[in-house]
């Protein structure tokens, strides 16, 4: 049984088709990185999963049951766009409201626990409107964690978080899925951060799922390359360009050779042409580059 199983999902806003025939599978125990450009249909899909907007067609099953089933809904934690909090109330009051909404037993203790998880226990008395963007995101995640949810749907939860905040969130996510039944759908534009935790990926474009894959499959399909530096970068690039089909200079100032080759061959080739390589390494492209490549139609 999968945590989320979506088949032929569609959503129209008047004549505009925001999501069209989307299929998506989130296995149990997965951290599902849901990726796409702005306006690709990510948030719309997540809103449909959460029951905020009705579908125009297709089906959504959560743990084998229809997404409207109250029993399943009671176990879905959500952070869509921004936390739904009352600005004039304190963090504590907002959390208690959500606890009441979810009929959480022993609400006060549970609120303390989730605030501790996101390191916000010291700011419980702050008015929500006085919290920084990062603190607000943490409150939103704490709210989503209330009631021990089985499925978390988090839309851009890493926005505004500092480095420590992101590390904490990674720990929280990994802690949640460790029993193998709970799952998290995370959409984020911070692909580097997402790659550190995601076990599965879904890439959406123009309302359609372009590709779904596991982290291992992504790893296997990410191309390796040789990156090097020399004392004569321009000449090196020109020489490599003559021999290899894809040679690019990256932002860090390395020349990358994507063709199937070995560092030894490249060093020898350049040495024969009078160039000394000062640094050379092999690496793989990351999620971000894979995604950009995919969007450019490179795959």
């Amino acid at each position, binding site marked *: 049984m999968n945590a989320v199983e979506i088949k032929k999902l569609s959503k129209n806003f008047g004549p505009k088709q925001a999501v069209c025939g989307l299929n998506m599978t989130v296995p149990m125990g997965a951290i599902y990185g849901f990726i796409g450009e702005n306006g690709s249909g990510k948030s719309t899909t997540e809103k449909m999963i959460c029951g905020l907007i009705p579908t125009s067609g297709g089906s959504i099953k959560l743990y084998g049951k229809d997404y409207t089933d109250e029993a399943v809904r009671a176990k879905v934690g959500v952070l869509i766009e921004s936390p739904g909090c009352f600005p004039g109330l304190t963090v504590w009051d907002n959390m*208690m409201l959500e606890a009441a909404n979810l009929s959480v037993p022993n609400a006060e203790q549970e609120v303390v626990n989730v605030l501790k998880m996101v390191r916000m226990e010291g700011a419980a008395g702050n008015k929500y409107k006085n919290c920084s963007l990062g603190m607000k995101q943490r409150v939103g995640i704490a709210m989503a964690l209330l009631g021990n949810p089985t499925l978390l749907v988090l839309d851009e939860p890493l926005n505004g978080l500092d480095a420590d905040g992101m590390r904490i969130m990674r720990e929280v996510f990994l802690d949640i899925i460790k*029993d193998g039944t709970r799952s998290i759908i995370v959409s984020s534009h911070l692909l580097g951060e997402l790659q550190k935790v995601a076990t599965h990926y879904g890439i959406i474009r123009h309302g359609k799922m372009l590709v779904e894959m596991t982290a291992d499959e992504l790893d296997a399909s990410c191309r390796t390359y040789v990156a090097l530096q020399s004392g004569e970068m321009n000449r090196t690039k020109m020489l490599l360009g003559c021999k290899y089909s894809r040679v690019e200079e990256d932002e860090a100032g390395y020349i990358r050779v994507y063709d199937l080759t070995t560092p030894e061959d490249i060093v020898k080739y350049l040495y024969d042409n009078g160039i000394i390589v000062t640094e050379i390494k092999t690496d793989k492209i990351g999620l971000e580059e894979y995604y950009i490549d995919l969007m450019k139609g490179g795959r």
Partner: protein
Amino acid sequence: MTRELKFKNPSFSERIKGMLGVDFYRLFHTPMFYIFLAIAAIIPAMVSAMTTMPGPDGSASTPLYSNLWQIIAASKSLYVIEGIADYANMNMVFIFGGIMVSIFIGHDYKSGYVKQLFTTHAKKQDYMISKTLVCAFAMACMCVTYLIGGIVGGMFAGYDATVNVGSLVIAVLGKMVMSLGWASLYTFLNVIFRRYFGISVASSFFFGTGILIIGAAAIVEGLGLPTGFLNVFLYGASVNANLSSGIGSLLICIVVSVAWAFIYNVAGTRLLNKSDVY
């Protein structure tokens, strides 16, 4: 190691308890409720005091009311108002109440809290019921503070306090019961105009004034037809709870209020089910 997943279907009482818990928590933890209670107390006191004050030149003013309890309810069923005294009574609570409901529900959407409400086990029906009950409670509380403000203001103004106690009690209870019907109307209006706060307030105010029924009554009276059927509407039944009411008026208030609450809740639920909530 994996554990078995069990999903427990929350009962209606569990769901509604959660939703009511949220709404009552909000009601009591935000200043808006207390401000409106104060407004409901101050307005009758001010109206009765100001209308008995002498003019700037020392001339005696004509009191607005002839009896203290007219501040609370009209002396008889008057769908078409003959003077401001027929109108300026506890029915005004339903006008302020409409604005209060608009602010209360509007904040759900403005703050985005509605996302939290509708992404959990709560059904749209629970939302409608909870908002209606909590807002009806708030408006009934406003009726009480209006009563207190009216009595204090009327006593200071020196109005005659002679009254048929039974009718007075029925009038007050009738109006408190009508809070349920009015709250359901305002909840429905605010669901329709949930993305347009200004229109929500304006529409609540418009319906709260009862102007549609007053206009209809003028036409019906002009045609020489009986106006009793107007009691099936919220404003008509509210006017029918007055200082000459009997137990029948209270029963009408109960039936009309509950019937409209049911109708507006069903309509609001259907609307929410079909539309994009956020």
